[in-house]
């Protein structure tokens, strides 16, 4: 009996020990509750810590910091006097790898209890533990897209979340608010329309979010979820009500893909970067441009560009002359005239002239990171001349500066001639005749004209030259005849030379005429007789074919007589 009592006591003790010992469990599941071992980057999942003992302290989970926390919840339930507390953490991974989650530590009744741990693999591509049926995927789809994959800190990113469901089979019940770890500038949607895809009519709903990352690194936009009601056909043929209730709605949760964006630091710049975006111009205007001392004028800096109003802080006026006091007034957004034009941000300042004179509000600079060129740019406004008059009537001189300031107010772009959009964009060498060839072609007619002129000259002055060179020509003839020994030609050579020199025809020339001419020019009679004898001798040579004895002396004589004749004639 005693033994039996001891056994019962032991069992009760064991039971009591089991009942009083706290149990801590850590579990990793997908959002819909199924077990999870692998998740994609950005795919949200749940880490649940269950404690079957009442406690007010929150568990600390090792390795939780390596995940991006989206939200957490606590649930308490009591069944048969036994209280269970569950802490759920909705997280997603933003880096690829194997991660150990846990153990979770919690203080229960003064002692620290530890849970088990779990290993989860975060992969680039999402892998569903419970794969969605292809048919279901076709029925409804949620897609998250971004317009940029590499940005700098503060740069605008447009995210689009698109739901597409077959019009007559799927109904969108609810869409969860996306969790973006960035500044959300603007949010719009849903914009709905119908679209034909693969012969099926889909209802499309789109939400757009303009976000700006506020820190460098990898920005992971987690998958978004939506609850959809899918119409399914009831296959219960035996049911009497199946005729009336042929279809039933099944509630399903669908997920989009996640998106990853590389965020880099802004480049280092000489001037402080005031914002990020695309800007067209910075324009400064002052109204009125002429004021009395102490009067206020409104200086407006108009910044035209594609950027939200809250992304630009009011720029401070730079290098203002000490004679002008200024303070910020207001800023407002001006809607563009055309649909494609950018908005204009107007910053107004009140400028007060403290000292009379003509002052210049220097060119204002606005430095920004241009998202199109991916570089730092600086916009400059034009300087403005301002005339501060003493408290009295404005002088005429100030009107000119007023006019000048007014001219600055004009939008110069309107008057400029538009750019050239086609042709002549690349420098081409103009086609020309090569200059050496050109000069040769230009010189050719000149040479022809010169040749013609020479011909004309020769035509006019040929007898003179002939007469002048008659004896030279005869000498050359004599040299030739001396070489051939044709002494019978000497007489003809002499007659020819004398006839040309006397401008007569050789046929009219006789020995008597030659004697008379020589006598007329004053030649000695002895010489005339000697020459006459010489001519007679030549005559004999030419008609009687005498072989000359000592031809050399004959040719010498001929040359001497030629010299003599040239001298006197």
């Amino acid at each position: 009996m005693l033994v039996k009592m001891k056994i019962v006591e032991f069992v009760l003790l064991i039971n009591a020990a089991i009942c009083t010992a706290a149990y801590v469990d850590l579990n990793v599941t997908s959002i819909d509750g199924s077990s999870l071992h692998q998740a994609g980057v950005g795919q949200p999942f749940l880490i649940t810590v269950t404690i079957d003992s009442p406690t007010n302290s929150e568990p600390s989970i090792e390795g939780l910091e390596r995940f991006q926390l989206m939200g957490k919840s606590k649930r308490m339930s009591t069944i048969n006097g036994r209280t269970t507390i569950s802490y759920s953490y909705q997280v997603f991974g933003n880096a690829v790898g194997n991660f150990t989650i846990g153990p979770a530590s919690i203080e229960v009744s003064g002692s620290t209890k530890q849970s088990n741990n779990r290993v989860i693999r975060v992969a680039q591509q999402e892998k569903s533990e419970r794969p969605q049926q292809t048919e279901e995927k076709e029925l409804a789809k949620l897609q998250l897209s971004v317009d940029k994959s590499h940005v700098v800190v503060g740069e605008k990113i447009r995210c689009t979340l698109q739901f597409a469901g077959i019009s007559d089979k799927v109904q969108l019940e609810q869409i969860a608010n996306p969790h973006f770890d960035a500044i959300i500038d603007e949010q719009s949607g849903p914009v709905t329309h119908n679209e034909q895809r693969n012969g099926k009519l889909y209802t499309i709903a789109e939400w757009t979010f303009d976000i700006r990352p506020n820190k460098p690194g990898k920005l992971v936009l987690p998958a978004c979820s939506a609850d959809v009601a899918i119409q399914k056909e009831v296959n219960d043929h035996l049911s009497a009500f199946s005729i009336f209730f042929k279809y039933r709605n099944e509630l399903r949760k669908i997920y989009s893909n996640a998106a990853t964006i590389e965020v880099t630091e802004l480049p280092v710049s000489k001037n402080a970067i005031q914002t990020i975006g695309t800007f067209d111009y910075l324009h400064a205007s002052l109204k009125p441009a002429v004021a009395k001392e102490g009067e206020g004028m409104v200086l407006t800096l108009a910044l035209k560009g594609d950027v939200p109003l809250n992304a630009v802080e009011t720029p401070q006026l730079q290098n203002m002359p000490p004679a002008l006091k200024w303070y910020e007034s207001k800023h407002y957004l001006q809607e563009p005239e055309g649909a494609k034009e950018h908005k204009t941000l107007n910053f107004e300042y009140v400028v007060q002239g403290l000292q009379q004179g003509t002052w210049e509000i220097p060119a204002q600079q606005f430095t920004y990171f241009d998202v199109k060129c991916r570089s730092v740019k600086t916009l400059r406004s034009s300087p403005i001349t301002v005339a501060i008059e003493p408290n009295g009537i404005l002088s005429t001189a100030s009107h000119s500066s007023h006019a000048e300031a007014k001219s600055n107010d004009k939008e110069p772009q309107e008057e400029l001639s538009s750019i050239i959009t086609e042709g002549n964009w690349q420098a081409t060498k103009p086609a020309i005749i090569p200059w050496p060839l050109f000069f040769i072609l230009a010189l050719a007619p000149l040479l022809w004209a010169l040749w013609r002129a020479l011909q004309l000259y020769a035509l006019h002055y040929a007898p003179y030259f002939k007469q002048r060179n008659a004896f030279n020509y005869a000498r050359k003839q004599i040299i030739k005849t001396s070489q051939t020994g044709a002494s019978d030609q000497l007489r003809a050579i002499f007659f020819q030379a004398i006839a040309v020199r006397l401008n007569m025809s050789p046929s009219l020339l006789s020995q008597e005429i030659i004697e008379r001419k020589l006598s007329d020019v004053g030649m000695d009679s002895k010489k005339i007789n000697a020459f006459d004898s010489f001519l007679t001798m030549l005559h004999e040579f030419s008609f009687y074919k005498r072989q000359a004895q000592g031809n050399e002396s004959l040719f010498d004589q001929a040359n001497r007589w030629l010299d003599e004749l040239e001298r006197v004639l």
Partner: protein
Amino acid sequence: MKKIIVLVITMFVLCAHANQEEFFLQGNKYYSEKAFECALDSYQKIEQKGPAVLFNMGNCYFGIGDEQQAIAHWLQADNQGPWNIHKKVDQNCTIAFKKLGKEYEASALHSIYNSFVRTLCIFPLLWWQLLFLCVWIFSIIAIVNATFNRQWGLIIFYLFFVCSITICFVIRYKSTSCTYVLVIGKDATVRTGPADNYGIIATANCLDTMSIVGRHENWLKVHNKVCTGWICAKDVAIIDSKL
């Protein structure tokens, strides 16, 4: 093998050409979006800038408020460009000069001369060369014949005719081959030598034009009505049709 090399070179040249045109079209797009600095970046990438690119760059500079550079680019475009660009350049330069408080065309005579030159520029230089050669050859033949026949009136007429064409031809040639500098620096100084330590002869006003006499490294020897001296190249824009 030779055919392959030729083909590769041809393909390379065609691709390079296409890329260059892409920069031009991209620049135009940026300009239409009023992203002037982006447009400038695109235009700068074009290696051999034609008159259209230079003109558009001028508009971009004007858009970002650099009127001096705008004028320099427009004038460069005008110097290289076909006759139809002149009107656009005139229009833009007038606005830019006005904005800088200056007059674009100094005198009526200058304006008339410019109009005359631009009329001559309607026809390309090749046409003028051919016209000059035809007139020259014809006139010389005619003058020689008239000289033989002692037709002095005709000779004078032909001489006048050939001289007129020659003058027009020379002016047309000069208009395409002139090189000068436009002062774009605010406090540009003309010095006695090509360095900062030389004495200052004169201060050049912004948008003054000067002819180039010589060059030494970063300095240009320039000449205008007032003086001859050296000016730093960064203070001027060289307007040259041969660039």
